[in-house]
């Protein structure tokens, strides 16, 4: 049967091209792989090979023709003894793909009702409490989950014999052995990838980065492999795992060891992002992170490791993702923060109270999913908001919160939202400069005074 040869698409963007030159003529016999023509695309001149065998019955488009649309018949191939007229009616070229309907932008209600907020307490009333550092809380969380699930293991640099560069994994090697608490070479990209592969293969890895600064070596595996595979596989397989380690500035470690990555990871669909402040949240959220069937970025903080907090003394204490914690209720302004930013937020609220300003302080705890309901609900009451974080200003977590408030509670605002952030500079080494580069309590107080017009 005669077949039509169609103008081929030779690049992802080609819609038409020039039939530069025919290398066969009518009557020639061609077989699969023979070059038939040269075609100029938007990118290059390419040779066009025959796929089928046959005799060139008729050339339909002369060489030199420009603007030949993809899928236009350019020649007819016949079998021996066949006439060109035998060509069967070709089906119409593939119909234009129906334009995908873009999802309509979320309608913006003028004055939305107050959103639903989950107000259940994190632990039952009357629960006994014990004092613990954030470091101990994290260790206990990992140990409890490793006892409960054999597939949970910890890998990273110095996590085993050295007991953790910041002693977070203290005692884990003794209890769980070298099969489950694994020292890796200094190869972040490699071991992050091995962790993701192990998660694909049925385990629940906890991958420790000595600090998140070094996770930049591995960010391709975190985002391209861990975060996207569930989607790319149509839901068949994903990476249930935790990437954890200290994030943000420590003290006097300079530009390459002081970055806050909260806003970076928060941007990625497929990741969950946790950044706790207190020891109880560190514990409860770590246990939730290990059980979560998705890749979780768990951003700890070196300065907070040694801080002591009350932690509920329970057999199995967990904190759900996507639920903020209101540390302090207030009426005049909402201060939203997370991680070490909470330290400045709470200090500022104490001082503001002395000046008669009542601040409500919200700890987001998880950045993705983010409990925007609690923020909106609070802003609808206080009509003012200040966000606090250590990271850089452009594309900050606070920027995102501001846009959510603007889109969903615009009519409630009595002042523009102010984002208190770290300064827009790499972290300096000099002690005095470092102090200025970081966010300060004084700046938070100043921002609150601005939005409350005091």
């Amino acid at each position, binding site marked *: 049967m005669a077949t039509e040869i169609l103008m081929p*698409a*030779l*690049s*992802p963007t*080609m819609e038409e091209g020039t039939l530069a030159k025919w290398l066969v003529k009518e009557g020639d016999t061609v077989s*699969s*792989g023979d*070059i038939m023509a040269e075609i100029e695309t938007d*990118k*290059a*001149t*390419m*040779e066009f090979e025959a*796929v089928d065998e046959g005799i060139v019955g008729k050339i339909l488009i002369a060489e030199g023709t420009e603007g030949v649309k*993809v*899928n236009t018949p350019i020649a007819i191939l016949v079998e021996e003894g066949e006439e060109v007229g035998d060509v069967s009616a070709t089906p119409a*070229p*593939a119909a234009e*793909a129906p334009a995908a*309907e873009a*999802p309509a932008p979320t309608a913006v209600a003028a004055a939305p009702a107050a959103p639903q907020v989950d107000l259940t307490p994190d632990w039952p009333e009357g629960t006994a409490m014990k004092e613990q550092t954030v470091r101990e809380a994290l260790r206990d969380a990992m140990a409890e989950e490793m006892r409960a699930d054999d597939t949970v*293991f910890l890998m990273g640099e110095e996590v085993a014999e050295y007991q953790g560069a910041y002693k977070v994994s203290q005692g884990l090697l003794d209890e769980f052995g070298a*099969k489950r608490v*694994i020292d890796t*070479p200094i*190869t972040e*990209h*490699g*071991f992050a*990838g*091995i*962790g*993701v*592969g*192990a*998660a*694909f*293969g*049925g*385990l629940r890895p906890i991958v420790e980065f000595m600090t998140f600064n070094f996770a930049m070596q591995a960010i*391709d*595996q975190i985002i*391209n*492999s861990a975060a996207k*595979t*569930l*989607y*790319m*596989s*149509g*839901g*068949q*397989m*994903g990476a*249930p795992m935790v990437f954890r380690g200290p994030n943000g500035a420590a003290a006097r470690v300079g530009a390459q060891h002081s970055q806050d990555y909260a806003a970076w990871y928060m941007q990625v*669909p*497929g990741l*969950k992002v946790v950044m706790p402040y207190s020891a109880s949240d560190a514990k409860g959220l770590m246990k939730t992170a290990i059980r979560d*069937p*998705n890749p979780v970025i768990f951003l700890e903080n070196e300065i907070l490791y040694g801080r002591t907090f009350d932690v509920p003394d329970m057999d199995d204490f967990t904190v759900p993702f996507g639920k903020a914690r209101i540390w302090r209720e207030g009426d005049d302004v909402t201060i939203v923060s997370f991680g070490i930013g909470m330290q400045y937020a709470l200090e500022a609220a104490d001082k503001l109270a002395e000046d008669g300003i009542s601040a409500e302080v919200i700890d987001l705890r998880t950045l993705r999913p983010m409990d925007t309901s609690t923020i909106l609900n609070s802003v609808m009451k206080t009509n003012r908001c200040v966000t606090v974080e250590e990271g850089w200003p452009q594309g900050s977590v606070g920027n995102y919160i501001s846009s959510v408030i603007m889109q969903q509670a615009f009519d409630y605002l009595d002042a523009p939202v102010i984002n208190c952030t770290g300064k827009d500079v790499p972290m300096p080494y000099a002690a005095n400069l470092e102090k200025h580069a970081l966010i300060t309590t004084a700046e938070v107080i100043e921002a609150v005074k601005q939005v409350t017009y005091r």
Partner: protein
Amino acid sequence: MAARKAASKPNVSAEELKGYYRDMLLIRRFEEKAGQLYGMGLIGGFCHLYIGQEAVVVGLEAAAEEGDKRITSYRDHGHMLACGMDPNGVMAELTGREGGYSKGKGGSMHMFSKEKHFYGGHGIVAAQVPLGAGLAFADKYLENGRVTFTYFGDGAANQGQVYESYNMAELWDLPVVFVIENNQYAMGTSTKRSTKSPSYWERGAAYGIPGEEVDGMDVLAVKAAGEKAVAHCRAGKGPYILEIKTYRYRGHSMSDPAKYRTREEVQKMRDERDPIEAVRSMLLTGKHASEDDLKAIDKEIKEIVNASAEFAKESPEPHLDELWTDIYADAAPQNA
């Protein structure tokens, strides 16, 4: 330690040989069809064909057992067909349709099959290498006796993560076969222009990993080497490297002006080293199959491939709601 000489050819039955012929032909015809559909605008974006390299995956799959895993790069269609994935599902993923292995959301470079232990399809050069070592890590941890075939190209072989993976794989005796598909080019860069130590398998020696070079145009040589590598892994001796010398006939992707090599070079390979022709003549000269037997196989393959193209055209585009699914897994563990 490192064995230079490839193992001698194994004895295979006429049936097995015919099976390899069939499996290689399926890949070739499928890829030709994919090329056609691309030309018609039904497949978009990048589409990397496997034509010329068929003996690599068919030979290694012949050495694999049920439950063994495989992971590779974006040049993945052949691997999927060779491990038994359904041509319809693969082709429909290429056309971005609901019936594709990833519901049309992955595309040519990102396909997966949990059922066939195929872990993708990865678009970032060499990213699959630590992932494959990680799959092997899980197998060792779970003590299930499985082996993972981790495929990567000669270009990928220069990435740093490969050597991080070699080191850890040997350090921890992971049951992984690192398969370097050396097709002599990384896009337009020949191996001569990317390294002065072109014997990739020898690099394993620096980490204590044995390996060998294999003729990738000879399916029986590949199978023999695969069996040796798998036996090494299953014996708990750690990883093994196979550098398989092969050749891709088509461009790197669909839009490759192919100016970095001559037509004669490609034609010479096709004429003298074609892996499918080699098996075909083995079957005929050894009188293991008649011309008619082979014609029947050709016909069967043509029907399978045409049916896959029909399926891939008929399968509807994914529902718009799919945009928002599979971003997060539900509480039920994915990999339980």
